């Protein structure tokens, strides 16, 4: 196997003048070269792909890549939205430096503000973070004649095959994509990307398999991020605590040409509202979907505002939120959602929350905050195949993939439970385009997509087995059930046989059935409420989270341990968004100064508090069917933390991350006359 490496632009914006690969080609170990961007074309961000090379060892691939001589003509660039939005900014992007998005307007804004007893007008913002998957993006590509097999770190094997076929202009039937296990995607791995295509071309040229994995720096620079979001908001509340008006102008950057929109206002009912959004382009890597795209931004921007408004009318933040939830539910769980606030507040001890600003003496101030979130989830279209063989073997085949969420486990459980067998009796084969189609894992759609397909297909296979067992037992197959490793007449264990014996009736031709997702076993629409308590050291600006509690629904819980694991991961990710992660570009060169795991901060063990999860597992939720839970828990933690910091210090930090410099600054401003 050979090793691929990509030569990337060190500059934020430049025209490629020339590419000279001659020295690289003479180097020991050189195997192949692919020019990805031709001279004359532009690179739009640091890390933009220019050339791929392959070498016989990974070490040599790094050294040989550096022998490729690319000459650039530097062009004007933007390192941040302020530069791109400056009135005299040069035109850097052919499509314009900004793009106006849709304008949304409901009700009568002027009339709304007339009803307002208090108006808050502030600017709120969130920053850019990268997906920072522990396993970087990468691929192994191997050609056999016209046929390509690609082992890809991807969230969608079938989608990847289509992208390879499109990108390489080969028939889709000639592409097989395999993803047995992968180490995190969070939305950044739904496209094989330039790195995937370069790897395939290198393998084709070298006539040997090529492995191309990005390093940490490339991962930060080039394969996705969560766009920034800023909004200037004017919002009004009536004397009795009803939201009456919202006027927001927002903008954000998804990098060199990508969008940045997000929901605003988030969740709460402003009957009279107007909102405009503008995409701003800067010379940085393009955004990709990131765990609940748009929601963490919209949630933070709105939820800080909510606490500011609640203070104006002297209402408890929970009561204020419940009072202003929309009349029409976004999902059938609406009534539950109001209840979640009550359940969570009680379990958390919200009644012990003090008013804004901890009055205790000493430098450590403690505070509580809350925030809420929603997500769609749901999924459809998955297919599956089940084989039952005469030796009692059961194999499920489904072209879904396991991102580390436990998809392999839940599909196995689904088959086993349907057949009344232990999970050890079922083999689940997933992550391969040879298996029936399943969609990419994005938007919390996997569980809801695959579980109905698994259930229906397995049920169909079981019916085929019943059809053989019924005559053998001289009973109507419709009276049979599969339970505890036996096929038996319902309620009559004596009238039955062991699974192994039943399968012996199958004979040489196995039971082999295909099935697919049907409506009715899955749903969509999830909601949750989160509470946090934190300590803020007002002499150093350092925040320490003490505990987090969430109430979260997700329809029918397939496996409690895995569902909770998703919630832990989502909450810790959001804690990182609130406190630590930050893609920092040098303001002058637009080159990233922290493309590593040293200065791109992420929580370690000591930074993660106790997290309590109240997973709603009621009969009503079970009746809704399976709904994914990947996205929702990562939406509101950061907003709840920011509100807890505000409650602790009495000072409002209106932008993430909550770095000590902002907290100290807000405390200073508060002392000097207020941040309200």
């Amino acid at each position, binding site marked *: 196997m050979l090793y691929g490496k990509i030569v990337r632009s060190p500059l934020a914006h430049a025209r490629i003048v020339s590419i000279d690969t001659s020295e690289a080609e003479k180097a020991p170990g050189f195997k192949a070269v692919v020019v990805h961007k031709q001279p004359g074309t532009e690179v739009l961000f640091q890390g933009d792909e220019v050339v791929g090379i392959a070498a016989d060892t990974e070490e040599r691939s790094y050294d040989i890549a550096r022998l490729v001589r690319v000459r650039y003509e530097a062009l004007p660039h933007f390192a941040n939205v302020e530069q791109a939005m400056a009135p005299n900014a040069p035109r850097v992007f052919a499509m314009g430096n900004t793009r106006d998005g849709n304008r949304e307007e409901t009700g009568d804004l002027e009339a709304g503000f007339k009803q307002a007893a208090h108006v808050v007008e502030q600017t709120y913002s969130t920053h850019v973070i990268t997906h920072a998957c522990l396993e970087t993006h990468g691929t192994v590509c191997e050609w056999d004649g016209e046929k390509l097999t690609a082992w890809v770190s991807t969230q969608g094997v079938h989608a990847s095959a289509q992208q390879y076929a499109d990108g390489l202009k080969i028939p889709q039937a000639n592409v097989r994509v395999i993803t047995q296990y992968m180490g995190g995607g969070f939305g950044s791995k739904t496209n094989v990307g330039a790195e995937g295509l370069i790897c395939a071309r290198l393998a084709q040229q070298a006539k040997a398999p090529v492995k191309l994995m990005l390093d940490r720096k490339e991962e930060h620079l080039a394969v996705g991020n969560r766009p920034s979001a800023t909004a200037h908001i004017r919002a009004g509340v009536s004397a009795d605590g009803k939201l009456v008006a919202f006027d927001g102008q927002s903008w954000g950057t998804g990098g060199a040409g990508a969008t940045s929109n997000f929901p605003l206002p988030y969740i709460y009912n402003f009957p009279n509202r107007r909102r405009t959004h503008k995409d701003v382009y800067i010379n940085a890597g393009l955004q990709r979907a990131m765990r609940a795209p748009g929601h963490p931004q919209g949630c933070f921007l709105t939820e800080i505002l909510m606490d500011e408004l609640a203070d104006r009318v002297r209402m408890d933040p929970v009561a204020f939120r419940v009072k202003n939830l929309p009349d029409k539910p976004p999902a059938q769980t609406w009534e539950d959602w109001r209840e979640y606030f009550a359940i969570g507040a009680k379990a958390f001890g919200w009644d012990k929350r003090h008013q804004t600003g901890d009055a205790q003496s000493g430098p450590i101030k403690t505070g509580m905050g809350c925030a809420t979130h929603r997500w769609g989830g749901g999924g459809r279209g998955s297919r599956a195949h089940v084989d039952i063989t005469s030796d009692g073997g059961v194999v499920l085949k489904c072209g879904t993939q396991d991102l580390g969420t436990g998809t392999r486990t839940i599909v196995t459980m689904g088959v086993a439970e349907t057949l009344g067998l232990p999970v050890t009796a079922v083999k689940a084969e997933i992550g391969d385009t040879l298996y029936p189609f399943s969609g990419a894992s994005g938007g919390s759609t996997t569980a809801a997509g695959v579980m109905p397909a698994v259930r229906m297909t397995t049920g169909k296979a079981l019916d085929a087995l019943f059809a053989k067992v019924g005559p053998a037992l001289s009973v109507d197959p419709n009276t049979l059930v599969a339970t505890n490793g036996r096929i038996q007449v319902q309620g009559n264990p004596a009238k039955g046989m062991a699974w192994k014996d039943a399968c012996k009736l199958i004979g040489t031709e196995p039971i082999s059935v295909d099935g697919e997702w049907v409506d009715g076993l899955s749903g969509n629409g999830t909601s949750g409420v989160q509470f946090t308590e934190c300590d803020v050291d007002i*002499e150093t600006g350092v925040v320490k989270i003490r505990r987090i509690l969430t109430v979260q629904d997700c329809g029918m819980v397939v496996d409690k341990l895995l569902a909770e694991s998703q919630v832990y991961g989502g909450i810790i990710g959001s804690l990182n968004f609130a406190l630590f992660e930050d893609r920092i570009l040098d303001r002058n060169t637009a080159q990233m100064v922290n493309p590593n795991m040293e200065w791109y901060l992420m929580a370690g063990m000591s930074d993660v508090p106790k997290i309590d999860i109240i997973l709603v597992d009621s009969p009503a939720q079970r009746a809704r069917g399976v709904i994914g839970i990947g996205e929702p828990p990562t939406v509101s933690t950061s907003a709840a933390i920011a509100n807890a910091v505000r409650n602790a210090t009495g000072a409002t930090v209106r932008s993430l991350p909550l770095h000590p410099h902002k907290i*100290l600054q807000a405390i200073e401003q508060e002392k000097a006359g207020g941040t309200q």
Partner: protein
Amino acid sequence: MKAFVYVNPTSEKDAVAALKTDGVAMPLGGGQDLLARMKDYVTQPDRIVNIKNALDTTITAAPDGGLKIGAAVKIVDLAANAQVRRLYPALLDAAGLVGTPQIRNQGTVGGNLNQRPRCWYFRNEEFVCFKKGGSRCFAVDGENQYHAIFGNEGPSHIVHPSSLAVPAVAYGARFRVVGPSGEREIAAAEYFTLPTLQNVLKENVLADDELLTHVILPPPGNVKTGHYEVRYKQSRDWPLAFTTVVLGMNGNTIRSARVVLGAVAPVPWRSEDAERALVGKPLNAETAAAAGEAAVKAAKPLSGNAYKIQITKAAVKRAVMRAAGLQTV
């Protein structure tokens, strides 16, 4: 990573000899710093000289009542040493806070003292700064939130990365250095250098063909000490600012004071302003607060790091409170 020759000497003398080469030779301790720089193409030596089998790995009592610490002592061993705990508790605290358990298990005392700056401009090859032979410091008008607030005359505005250097200076340590022409001892306070256009490629006076072999600590005398580090993240993070204070006591009155600040200047930064605020005063919370205020009087922050003044103030106050045996928060 550029290919290199690996040399594994087993004596001081052989190690010094191994540093002599036509190309660039560099000593290798735990490798946390050097190997990462090599992987990032920031540093490209032709020869690496492993010093872990060549230099002293022990901590021994000196006849005068002080301690002699070998440069090849692992930080984890320093942080667990009973004599260090008894005589130099601030050094013990600093050692225990270095990096992570893995880094402390791998890293050496010599490596910690001689590590290169963590400045993100220095660490990324795109930025050819003064420290890489270039002609500018990108931090001045760039992203300088973690850079210096003292000693900012330039040309470089790094903060010195060593946690052990700060208590070493505060305790009045001397460093033993060997080279081709023999050995010499240098006071820790003289070892680290403020940048000039002439010396900016280095952070200390150690010549390319010299090795730091020992940290020699004088007997501490009747002192009370305190060490306080402020980190944003509690797991694996560089301190935003930290301080060691060593107070010579006469009853409850402070007779003499050493206040050394870390992560705020290109060298371990001795704050004479804070020392003056302490000497002659009773050791109590009020004095601690006054020392904190005094410590930052002369700070000259860059465009984006004035917040470090408040953090430094808190670190000094709390280090003094620790010396006084008071609760810090």
